[in-house]
């Protein structure tokens, strides 16, 4: 999956672009702070930098200058209209920047990105999505943050991980985006795994998502109770990274 580094002031336009591009790319957003941009670029080299100029003033010129000078090997694309466009005219002269029209729609932006990155596409048949192998989304539900953190460390990089410390929070996350698989802790205070599972099963979009139970309780009656809920599987805590990966492999592919 291609990485796109999106720079801009946090405003409505920026949010929209971010939201739209996230459907197709692994988007990393960043505010208009030069140190921060440098730091993040050092951390993760993107395939493309997109700068949303909306609300940019003369103060932000430095950012573009830096990109022009130091990051010649990464293609840069500018979208949106700056508040003080006059300041940027000089910058755009003989650069490797791809400057888009101020009124370019999201589709047009996407098209240009595909062109810049040399990806085959077919706009009419809507192959965009299919051309992408999206990362699978894993939802972890556990009352213990450290437990979640452990799992997150094991999975991040290979999966998109979302974490929820309670059943209710998990439902909110599922509402935003239906995960491909769910790991659910059985023994949670207040709203336990059984209740959470029942709630998940009541959501129409999420009722077929495989749910793997994680349980620390080893006694037979307990496991029996878990099995009666017909989960896609269960793992005993503490589950090793190998086990978790194997389980994901089994259920996702």
């Amino acid at each position: 999956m291609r990485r796109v580094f999106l720079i801009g002031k946090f405003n409505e336009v920026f949010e929209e672009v971010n939201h739209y591009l996230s459907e197709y790319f692994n988007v990393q957003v960043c505010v208009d702070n030069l140190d921060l941009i440098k730091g993040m670029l050092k951390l993760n080299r993107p395939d493309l930098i997109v700068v949303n100029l909306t609300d940019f003033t003369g103060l932000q010129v430095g950012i573009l200058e830096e990109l022009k000078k130091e990051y010649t090997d990464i293609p840069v694309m500018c979208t949106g209209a700056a508040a003080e466009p006059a300041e940027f005219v000089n910058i755009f002269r003989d650069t490797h920047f791809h400057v888009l029209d101020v009124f370019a729609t999201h589709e047009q932006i996407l098209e240009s990105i595909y062109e810049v990155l040399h990806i085959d596409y077919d706009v009419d048949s809507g192959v965009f999505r299919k051309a992408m192998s999206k990362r699978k989304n894993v939802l972890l539900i556990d009352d213990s943050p450290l437990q979640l953190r452990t799992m997150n460390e094991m999975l991040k990089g290979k999966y998109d991980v979302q974490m929820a410390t309670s059943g209710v929070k998990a439902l909110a996350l599922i509402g935003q985006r239906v995960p491909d698989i769910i790991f659910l802790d059985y023994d949670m205070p207040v709203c336990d795994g059984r209740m959470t599972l029942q709630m998940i099963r009541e959501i129409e979009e999420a009722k077929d998502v495989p749910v793997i139970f994680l349980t620390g309780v080893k006694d037979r009656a307990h496991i029996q109770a878990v099995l009666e809920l017909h989960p896609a599987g269960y793992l005993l805590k503490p589950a090793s990274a190998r086990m978790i990966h194997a389980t994901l492999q089994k259920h996702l592919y």
Partner: protein
Amino acid sequence: MGTVKESRDDIAVYIEDREYMANQYVMKCFFITMVFYVVSFILNQLEIFIVDKQVMTSGFFPSLIIYVIMLIGSKMVSLSNEKVKFFILFAVMVVYTIMGITITYHVVLASVLPFLYATLYSSKKLMRYVYILTIISTICIVYGGFYWGLCDANMALLTTGRLQEHSLNGQFLLTTVNPNPIYSLFIFYVVPRCLIYFAFVFVCNNIIRIVSGSIEKVKLTAELERAKTEAETANQAKSKFLARMSHEIRTPINAIFGMNEMILRESKEPAIRKYASDAKDSSEILLSIINEILDSSKIESGMMELVPVNYKLGSLLNDIYNMMNVRAKEKKLELIFDIDPGMPKQYYGDDKRIRQILINLLNNAIKYTNRGKVTLKITCDVEGEIATLHFAVEDTGIGIKQEDIGKLYEEFKRIDSGRNRNVEGTGLGMSIVQQFLKMMNSELHIESEYEKGSVFSFDIEQKIVDKKPLGDFHKRYIQSVDTEFKTSFIAPEAKVLVVDDVEMNRTVFKALLKKTRMQILEAGGGKECLDMLKEQKVDIVFLDHMMPEMDGIETKHRIKELQLCEGVPIIMLTANALAEDREMYLQEGFDDFLSKPILVNKLDEMMLKYLPKTLIMEADYPEEEEELPEVVELPELEEFDFGYALSILQKEELLYKFLEDFHHSMNSIMQRLEMYYASIEKSESLQEYRTEVHSLKSTSATVGALLLSKVARLLEVAALEQDIQKIRTLHPVLLEEMMKHKERIETVIQQEEEKPFAEKVEAAYLDMLKLGLRNEDYATADFMCAEIQKYRYPKQIQEKVNELVESIFRLETEEALHIIEEIRG
């Protein structure tokens, strides 16, 4: 040490006994004497048997004094030695005689006999002296009294028949007519009176004994009844507990067995192989002990039932012979099976139990025999459809003392434990045998000669299924050895499918079959199994019983419905070792079942039995080299099991990262715990407390702090059960341990280096962080968090930042957003 202490205890008990007896007799005799006085007083009043009044009073008080002396004396009997006792006795007698002579022999006669009789009742030697002394003193008293003219009227009448007023003070004077007064006095007076006293004491003694005895008995019966019910309740609880525990224990043993087997197969280091083989022996012993406990507890809790099936005696004995012969050979003993060749071949009964009985008896025989032979004799009487089988196990072992035979059936009792302490066992075997036989309406007979050997025999009735004769057992056995001993084989062409939802179990299974070079296919569930069977043909299938989604039995039915692999043997893998389950599996159409823990020999046997013979080949094990996984160097830290942590986290960096995170979060965890603890009586606080220890339990285990995790677990349980008292006890322990752990972690993780100083938190960072949090995008949030932490801030802001980092780590989105606003001011 033990014997010295025992003998001391014995002496103490002995002394107590003596003291008690002496006291009791003194009291009895005092009572008898009092009765005597009352009787003689009445007789005196009625003028039937006249005793001088002065004599009565002067006799009563000295007797009283003497009883006091005697009470003291009886204490001394138990404390002092023989010589002192004799001296006291002699002194008392002398005093007595003098008193008797000067006051009156009459009173002395009344009291002295029971007194002596009683004081020294329990020693025969002393008794003899007492009688002699009594007679002497009586003669002295009578003679002295007579000589000095102090005898009373009755006496005079008896001895002489004549009575005269003697002196001024009213005493009688005796005119001697009888030529031999002492002699007649003795015959007519002393002897009959002595006899009457003896008889009287004897009768009273018996009455007292009967009365007190029956009181004791009533008390004892009540006590026994109570103790019995108590013991029974406790026993039942114990049995249930044991039955449950044993089941729980069996499951992990599977892994121990399997892994050990893997070590034995894969390691070439002789030292390691030695350790592993020792571990294997021990785990086998452990398993057999657990099986014994399981059996005995099942019997006691009434869960054990006989499960009769058709069985062949020959193959039953064959199994037993194979198993026992190995042990016998180890001890260089001869094992002989003397089986009547004419007896029927096949029976209907519970072969499992018969097998267990025979194995137990033979095992015992081999255990307690050091040279010679062990023989199993079986003969049979046929009456129509019923055969009575006579089993007898003979050995040339150490034998059992006659008085010990009863102890054989007691649970956990080991006969002659001093002599046999190096023979292992639970002491349950015989009790189980006895109980099984009882279930089959039989009992065990034991004949034994100490140091020579024993014979254990029993008879059981079994229905005959096949009357064909059994034949010569030894010939049959030798024939079957050829086929059964082929444990080393390979089958590279054979395809085996193992279906188990637990990966560990599949790993064990695969490892056990590694040497056979079979092609092993794995499936993690019923569905997967069906898919695989659709695609390819396999030669044998092993199915686990308990699986999520589709269990083993359902999978089996589906295989049959879909006609996936007809004629392919399907074998059930199960941790349920109960006999009734076994029946169920066979009824459900499984070809056989294999109980977990999987024993390698059983598995090999299964393979040999069910795999097509064309696939099995002779083994030619070429040694294979296997690379061991790289061992990671981990720091040693007290109370931390980093090996365990690594088995979960897999990567060393992760471990360090989490150790650091854990270290960071410890302070706030402790703070929160203290906060909730302060108001623990409130149910909300208790709930919060529980949540907190619950998460501490798993997080501490993740970094390998297993002790901490256990303490947290105890507290969680206590909170769940609302056991405030327990929480109060454990809470300080937990906090103390947390402090200690914190200090320990500090020795391992790197100290924070000096950071650059910043006046305030970069607003852009906060913006990014906020965005990340709003979208629940923790990847971004974590990154920003790390960026923010790269600087030092003024104290006030630093505190806020720490809070922020902590709340983000705990995924408290709302709280984190709130703190961001606070930092912004």
